[in-house]
């Protein structure tokens, strides 16, 4: 195995790039607008699950992650795994804007033959570090990637964004156990704790709390933040322990399902999977654009 260490790419985007909170908030709202547009194009999609983690996606891609869109397989890039793959619709506009693929690809979203699908496919889309769709797998994949970084003496971090309903999958806890056993300080789990799964509130379907305590008991360092506050997320990511550390980090990102639209926050479950009418889209766009204009 060839060992490469340290950022060497001339086109790399470094970690913790300077960007203002207002701009990150605007990015999160732009992700929401694009999500509405793409889901309309496809005719079906996961709105409220995407909205809950829009701020996390914005902060990771526009501030935190070390990336090189010109070299998607750069060995020293930070990895980002979308455990809750059903929100790929929110990832596509970002990857296009960063230059991983032509923005024209977005226009084909949801159509037969499009590389952009409801869940991400690593073989079809540059910038997707691993495929997802089957909940509960990606934290394990992240453990493997963390082990690989250790073997090649790389300092890349591996971020895995999971849903909170996803944590009902038993494999997640196998992964949690193995991450601390192998002392993977380069692994960061971000739990998008919006309180719901497809079937209803997680407190009703199958309780997963207390999340931080559970991960702490599995040997992880935990931090709990308001996941719809870009400043809080950025602070949490900026102060991550060095990836050479010996404990994986769990960021419990407390979010609102459907965050960013009042009607959706009031009825998050109705918008887990759906398709807005023309009137609903117009109202949603108006609400988001008014916020962005302030």
């Amino acid at each position, binding site marked *: *195995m060839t060992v490469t260490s340290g950022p060497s790419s001339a086109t790399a985007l470094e970690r913790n790039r300077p960007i203002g909170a207002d701009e990150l908030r605007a990015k999160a709202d732009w992700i929401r607008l694009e999500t509405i547009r793409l889901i309309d194009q496809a005719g079906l999609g996961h709105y409220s699950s995407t909205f809950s983690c829009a701020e996390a996606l914005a902060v990771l891609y526009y501030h935190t992650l070390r990336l090189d869109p010109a070299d998607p397989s750069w060995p020293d890039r930070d990895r980002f795994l979308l455990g809750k793959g059903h929100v790929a619709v929110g990832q596509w506009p970002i990857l296009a804007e960063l230059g991983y693929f032509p923005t024209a690809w977005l226009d084909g979203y949801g159509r037969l033959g499009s590389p952009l699908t409801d869940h991400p496919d690593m073989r079809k889309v540059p910038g997707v570090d691993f*495929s997802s769709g089957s909940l509960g797998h990606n934290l*394990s*994949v992240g*453990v493997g990637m963390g*082990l*690989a970084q250790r073997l090649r003496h790389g300092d890349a971090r591996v971020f895995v964004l999971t849903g909170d309903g996803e944590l009902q999958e038993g494999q997640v806890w196998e992964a949690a156990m193995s991450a601390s056993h192998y002392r993977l300080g380069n692994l960061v789990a971000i739990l998008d704790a919006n309180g719901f799964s497809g079937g209803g509130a997680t407190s009703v379907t199958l309780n997963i709390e207390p999340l931080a305590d559970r991960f702490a008991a599995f040997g992880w360092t935990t931090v709990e933040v308001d996941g719809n506050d870009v400043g809080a997320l950025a602070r949490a990511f900026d102060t991550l322990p060095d990836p050479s550390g010996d404990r994986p980090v769990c960021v419990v990102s407390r979010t609102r399902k459907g965050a960013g639209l009042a009607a959706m926050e009031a009825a998050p479950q109705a918008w887990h999977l759906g398709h807005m009418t023309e009137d609903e889209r117009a109202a949603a766009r108006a609400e988001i654009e008014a916020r962005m204009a302030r």
Partner: protein
Amino acid sequence: MSNVTSQMEDVFSEEAQAHSPNVVGDELARLVAAHPEVVVLSADMGAALGKVREVAPERYFDLGIAETNTMSVAAGLAASGFVPYVVSMAPFGMLKCAEQIRTDLASTKMPVRIVARLSGLAMGFFGASHHAIEDLAIARTITNLTVCAPSDSASTIALLRSTYDVDGPVLIRTSEGIARQVYDAVPTIPRGCFVEVRPGDDAAVIATGVGVSIALEAAEVLAGEGVQVRVLDAAYLKPLDERAVVAAAGTGRILTVEEHHVMGGLGTMVAEVLGRHGLGARLEVHALPDEDLEVGVPAALLERYGLTPAGVTAQLRHLLAG
């Protein structure tokens, strides 16, 4: 030592591994030494992997009794440039992980090699939970997955070695219940090819895994009576050697032998080929019945279900009489 223990050696113990040929562990140690990108993952099967730990302790990972996690961890290592060999017990490492294998290894074409040990009835003593007899039926439907099954220790080495650089994931279905060697030396088995281990034109046996050595013994019995039976080692189940099946049909009589459920395994695959090619050869499938199987030591189970030279000889006589 009790009778049961003497028949069902504790293959998991360090002591047993130290005193019996450890083909898988030895070959994996060679692979680790030869290729710096090879890593070995174990789902609590470390007793057989002591040499790997000696050669490259940093490239050996025990993930414990957590097979599903182990498969997906392997996927993450593979996505980072490594070539993981995952060692687990077949009923858990393959059957339990069918979805992880499909989703994380095969759909993504990750170069992970799944060494499914103790397949078939090799752990039959421990209960029906430990039978792994549905694996081929599942594995063959997984797109991008190469499926192979050694028939003795030499072909175990051959397949472990030769699948190192196969594109995409590989399932290597091993069994520890093989008494007789099929090959004198490590054979060369091209991907997707059967091996003719005995010539003959009066009938053809297509066997896999433990079935091959059994079929060879049966063919020798019949040779003593002047009947020449071709024996093919179906070392690869996917891709399947269709040309060899078509050629076998030229004998007019085919018997398949496998330590697998009668549905979906080698017999089914051969029947599909005959059907697709419109060939009218007589086909008999010698496999495990679609019923609750007995529990017992492997030798007793193989005897019970006719996976013995006598059982296959009798089946061949039936085929030849038809």
